[in-house]
């Protein structure tokens, strides 16, 4: 078992800035030395250099406290980082029958899959891959192994767009990640069933620094379902994640994330970047369904002309949860297309902030994109900020946005009651219907069932709150 460096006792001024709500815009973590190592195909040197630089940032920065809009604060200050450590378990073997961690066993649907990699805390504990896909050159392994093997895709793409110096937790991820997941689908390979990438935070005191690199070769087609889960426990834990998906020319991917860290005091700091190449397409749907404190920077970049994407998302915060999301629809070249549609709910005393940004760079002419954010509050104590915005630096484009924050409509509930549904069922139908325009686009029945079941659980848990809210209006 290894530990991350302990926090120094001295308190430095905390990081307060709005720059975190800016797109990465392809910055990446690579400097000249990293670029040279990548050019030489020296994955080990590239990784060592980037870890070293990230460590320097980690050691000189404080736990972030972000404020913006004058009223929103996301603070990791209560996290006792010095008490956390990266926990390691028995490494994965070729034995595909390795038992799943409990949280994964409870959540993952029984269904056909192309492959699966499971990371518990700091270790990859299970890897399986359809042998016929392996024979066609598909590679699914730990990211550590990919780096050690000198994977060309690793050298080419690792940390190409993920930064490592914006804050302490991002630097921690880049410096200390272990295990990790690497998926490479070679050119022309079409895979019907999804690849599953699973992260489970297993115990209090655990610092899980998860890292994922996925590369879709030209004209490949595949699906990825990523699960971020946790066991139930008392005490603090941390999940950081750096996720990169690169789609080369003409590649197509349907990507879905299911995130539910449950009721434990787990702090999440995640940055996910999806980059779409020439004539490539990505349908991306994160379902963010819980966690004590969750901050997600989700960026979908169309890198080259002809790239297209559909960026959907749902979130549901409850109890005392804080969910801070920043979703970017970035167009670096045109013509390109985009369609961003998020829906979310907040119950209990939770707070959820969804900031969505369309950014169209100079030269990305003939880009057409639309951003909409719709939310519903299920409690008088819940708070939602829905902030759509547009930054356009080209003059032959169409970009628009819209958003709404609403409450449950009592007339609709009465309508359903008048047809025989009791109030609880009516509220459930109403909220499920609210999510349906996005949820139905998962186009994957087993995963849809998992998400629907979790939403139903959350609604059941919030029932008294919803009733009190209705009575008070």
């Amino acid at each position: 078992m290894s530990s991350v460096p302990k926090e120094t006792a001295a308190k430095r001024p905390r990081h307060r800035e709005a720059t975190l709500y800016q797109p990465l815009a392809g910055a990446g973590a690579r400097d000249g030395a990293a670029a040279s190592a990548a050019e030489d195909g020296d994955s080990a040197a590239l990784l060592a250099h980037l870890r070293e630089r990230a460590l320097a940032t980690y050691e000189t920065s404080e736990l972030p406290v972000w404020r913006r809009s004058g009223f929103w604060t996301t603070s990791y200050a209560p996290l006792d980082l010095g008490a956390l450590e990266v926990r390691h378990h028995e490494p994965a073997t070729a034995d595909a029958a390795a038992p799943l961690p409990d949280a994964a066993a409870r959540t993952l649907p029984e269904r056909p899959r192309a492959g699966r990699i499971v990371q518990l805390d700091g270790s990859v504990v299970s890897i399986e891959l359809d042998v016929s896909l392996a024979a066609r050159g598909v590679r699914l392994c730990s990211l550590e192994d990919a780096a050690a093997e000198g994977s060309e895709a690793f050298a080419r793409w690792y940390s190409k767009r993920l930064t490592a110096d914006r804050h302490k937790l991002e630097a921690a991820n880049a410096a200390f990640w272990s295990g990790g997941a690497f998926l490479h689908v070679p050119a022309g390979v079409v895979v019907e069933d999804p690849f599953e990438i699973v992260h489970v935070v297993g115990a209090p005191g655990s610092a899980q620094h998860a890292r994922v690199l996925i590369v879709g070769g030209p004209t490949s087609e595949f699906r990825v379902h990523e699960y971020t889960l946790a066991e139930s426990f008392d005490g603090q834990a941390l999940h950081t994640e750096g996720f990169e998906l690169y789609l080369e020319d003409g590649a197509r991917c349907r990507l879905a994330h299911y995130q539910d860290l449950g009721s434990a005091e787990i702090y999440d700091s995640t940055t996910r970047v999806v980059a779409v190449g020439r004539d490539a397409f990505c349908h991306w749907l994160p379902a963010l369904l819980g966690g004590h404190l969750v901050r997600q920077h989700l960026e979908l970049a169309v890198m080259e002309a002809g790239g297209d994407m559909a960026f959907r998302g749902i979130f549901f915060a409850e109890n005392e949860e804080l969910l801070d999301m920043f979703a970017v629809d970035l167009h670096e070249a045109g013509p390109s297309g985009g369609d961003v549609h998020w829906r979310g709910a907040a119950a209990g005393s939770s707070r959820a902030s969804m900031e969505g940004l369309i950014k169209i760079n100079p030269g990305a002419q003939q880009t057409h994109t639309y951003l909409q954010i719709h939310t519903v509050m299920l409690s008088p104590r819940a708070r939602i900020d829905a902030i759509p915005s547009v930054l356009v630096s080209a003059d032959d484009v169409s970009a628009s946005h819209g958003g709404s924050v609403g409450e449950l409509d009592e007339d609709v509930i009465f309508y359903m009651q008048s047809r025989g549904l009791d109030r609880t069922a009516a509220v459930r139908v109403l909220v499920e219907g609210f999510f349906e325009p996005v949820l139905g686009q998962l186009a994957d029945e087993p995963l849809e069932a998992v998400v629907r079941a979790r939403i139903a659980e959350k609604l059941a848990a919030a029932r008294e709150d919803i009733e009190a809210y209705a009575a008070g209006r």
Partner: protein
Amino acid sequence: MAELEIRDLHVRIEELEILKGVDLSIDRGEIHALMGPNGSGKSTLANTLLGHPNYEITQGAIIFAGQDITEAEPHERAKAGLFLAFQYPVSIPGVSIANFLRMAINAKREEPIGVKEFRGLLERAVELLDVDRSFTSRPLNDGFSGGEKKRAEILQMAMLAPDIAILDETDSGLDIDALRTVAEGVAKLHASQGLGALIITHYQRILHYIKPQFVHIMLDGRIVLRGGEELVERLEREGYDQIRQEHSAVV
């Protein structure tokens, strides 16, 4: 005792009394028309009968199938066999008509309805209302025209097979063809299922397709005049003003 008995019903919204003592009895198989000008309390009566929480009953009782349902929850009234076709049906995005109907039917049953039985019911209802089968795959009332909404209401009524239905201005906003389709649908349900109905309307035209046995005129929160079909003809000739003058003592 009639299937539905409304006794001396007084209803208010916030501090404003809308219904000021309504008595009405409706049996299965009977067609009643309730007519009155805007603001007379017709829709308040409809919503109160189904238990809308915004309407407070301050006096009187509603008896349905021998049970006092004055305080019952809306879904309990529906399960007992009451139905309201709304004047302004709300939309429920993300929920198809077919799925909603399956949920509503299952809410009234011990065991969920079988796929085959449900499909059979749905096909008969679709035929009755002269709509395309694909209509039932659309989210309920979401983006519907006025006519489609009213058809969807009657489609639900056909599927849920209530004992007594209240049709709150179902004829408003319908063109003549849609009106005929909807009205004929109601008439067929009346004939085939023994449906009892309270048809609330401003106008006479729907009553050309569904002949009421009983006609009630409501003014200022009270039923001031009762009769048969001849009342409809009188209204056509004289309008509400004449009746209002005759009953000026109470209105």
